[in-house]
């Protein structure tokens, strides 16, 4: 190999290796943040409904701080290389989507859009060749949300909140109907979508238990 050719190639390989290291460091940071948030949010299963706002307030600042990390990553990724590196951080990002949409549901019973999540994570339109929230990552986060809510429906009842399951049921039915309109290929997303059916069945059974026994005010009159 002539030396210029070789040097050229070696330089490319080394730059990549270095960059990979740097991005990995930022992803570790991102991962830590999402781990802290999911750790805190894990308490929703044992926190009475009226104390939820305080819990959510404690998570919010960490969520906002994620924009630091997304900015760092966007800074590192060379122009046009979003698709090269995205697998590195997609797990953290999906977890962040999960956190953001969970907080929003608990606050307002509504589903945060992909744009709103992007904004909250500080993702800039100008980064579009370096750091984007893709539909796929957003949907993965939303499925995790549903998985968690089916667990919450159960635990809310244990804590004596009989209305939460009904809210969850309505919310999840909507999401499920949405998903069933999407043309998903036979991949991970499709498999996880299939798992939604179990979540929904479980939630329906909780609502059944509550309404059969006329425990929730809304069902007591039924």
């Amino acid at each position, binding site marked *: 190999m002539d030396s210029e050719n070789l040097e050229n190639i070696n330089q490319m390989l080394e730059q990549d290796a270095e960059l990979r290291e740097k991005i990995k460091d930022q992803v570790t940071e991102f*991962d830590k943040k999402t*781990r802290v948030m*999911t*750790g805190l949010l*894990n308490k929703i*299963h*044992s926190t009475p409904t009226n104390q939820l706002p305080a819990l959510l307030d404690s998570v919010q600042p960490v969520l906002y701080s994620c924009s630091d990390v997304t900015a760092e990553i966007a800074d590192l990724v060379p122009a046009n290389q979003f698709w090269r590196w995205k697998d590195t951080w997609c797990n953290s990002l999906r977890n962040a989507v999960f956190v953001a949409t969970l907080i929003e549901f608990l606050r307002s019973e509504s589903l945060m859009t992909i744009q709103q999540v992007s904004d909250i994570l500080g993702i800039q339109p100008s980064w579009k060749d370096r750091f984007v929230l893709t539909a796929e990552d957003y949907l993965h986060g939303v499925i995790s949300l549903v998985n968690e809510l089916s*667990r919450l429906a*159960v*635990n809310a*009842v*244990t*804590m*004596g909140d*009989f209305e939460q399951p009904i809210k969850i049921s309505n919310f999840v039915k909507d999401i499920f109907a949405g998903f069933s309109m999407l043309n998903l290929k036979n991949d991970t997303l499709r498999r996880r979508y299939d798992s939604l059916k179990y979540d929904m069945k479980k939630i329906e059974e*909780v609502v059944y*238990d*509550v309404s059969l*026994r006329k*425990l929730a005010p809304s069902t007591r009159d039924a």
Partner: protein
Amino acid sequence: MAEQPQTGSLKSRTAIVVVFETFRNELDEHNDRRERLIKNSRDVTNLSKKVIFLLHRIMTEDEPTPKPNNDRASRAAAKGREKLKEVQNLFASIRGEVEGDRFWRYQRNVSPGLQEYIEALSFAHYLDTGALISFNQVQQSLSDEHGVPYFPLTLEDYLLGLSDLTGELMRYAISAISQRGGRTIAREVCTFVRSCRADFETLTPYYKELRKKQAVTSQSLQKIEDATYAIAVRTSEYDLPPEMLDDVVAMVSGS
């Protein structure tokens, strides 16, 4: 042997063969020791499993005159700890085999039994104290009367043993539910396992095996949550305090 292989590099076949004979002895000795430790580890596993069943048995068996659950639990823990002394003796017996730098050489062979032991020990500890046994307490249980460890406890074995504990606690909680006072036990175990899961979660990045076991822990937790949910739904339908509910059922079913 007239050759002095130590004094320089080896020039003759005889010299080489002499040196390689020492390698053979070294390798054979290593393999034999490894075998002994694997056998020891199998014994430890079997004994520890029996202790776990013993603990479950005492916690579910009928009592002629019902006493507070705490009494029963300390009795179970005491019996379990008694039996675990046998296991500790097994560990004491390999002390010489894993001395000094050798421990880390054979750690993987000691590990399976050790984790099962930690599972049993921590179960007894939980029944007794309602708390998670600490790293130092486990290390202490693996030490002689002067407090000198038979071998260093690794963090990984400690955590993986504890992770298995959650599965046993799930079984304990589910069978408790059909007993008097079982509802309280189920609720306590639920809280405890929830906090175990949370504690382990921060440690999963460090151990791959723990990540796998954490998935099992999550499933166990969900089973316990589902069970406490069923209790909550049932009691919510009636306006009686839990103890009275127990009494009514006992009267009807005549047990």
